[in-house]
């Protein structure tokens, strides 16, 4: 088993782990009760899934074709920077447009700061 076969196996294994993480995040997306907990599933584990998959493709091309792909590295950096920012902005706009929390959630400290005037009037 030479270096090429080991590199192919490591790349394919990283891709497989990444897709399993993606299915786990999809189960979180369908099972959790409201949009805030769903954003927890959709942002963190989905970002980890796509990072593992792109890293697997990078290792595969590096060991089989001796090709260091700058575009895959740029894709990794870009997804790692932008996916949490997009999730944060979406949940911020969801809270400010008064999407309701789930019934089982306990405290809501931001309600007193942001939506106080509707509660008093």
């Amino acid at each position, binding site marked *: 088993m030479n270096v090429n076969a080991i590199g192919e196996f490591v790349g*394919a294994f990283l891709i497989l782990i990444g897709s399993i993480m993606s299915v786990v995040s999809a189960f979180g997306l369908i099972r959790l009760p409201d949009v805030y907990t769903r954003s927890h599933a959709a942002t963190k584990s989905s970002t980890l899934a796509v990072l593992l998959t792109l890293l697997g493709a990078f290792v595969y091309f590096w060991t089989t074709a001796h090709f260091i792909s700058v575009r895959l590295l740029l894709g990794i950096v870009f997804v790692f920077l932008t996916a949490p920012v997009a999730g944060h902005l979406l949940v911020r706009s969801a809270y400010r447009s008064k999407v309701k929390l789930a019934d089982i959630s306990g405290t809501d400290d931001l309600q007193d700061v942001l939506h106080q005037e509707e509660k008093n009037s």
Partner: protein
Amino acid sequence: MINTMLTISLVLLSITIVISVLRIILGPSLPDRVLALDVIGVNLIASIAVISVLMNTKAFLEVILILGILSFIGTIAYSKYILRGIVVERKRDR
């Protein structure tokens, strides 16, 4: 064996996309649907990387960058639409 591992991961990624489409259909509010669209974009990036490994070509690697940029801009525009009710704001000349 490498081919079967890559095919299994493509099937798992498409299962994720199907579940996200289900969340788009039955999501109760608009941010739920936009969140599921963001998940679909990220999974399309991952599946294009897998397809490019499976076909052993380097021609599809630009698509990853383009899809990442488009998914990010789309989510930002939707969140601004949810917050303000408008996407493009013009400044009035005074």
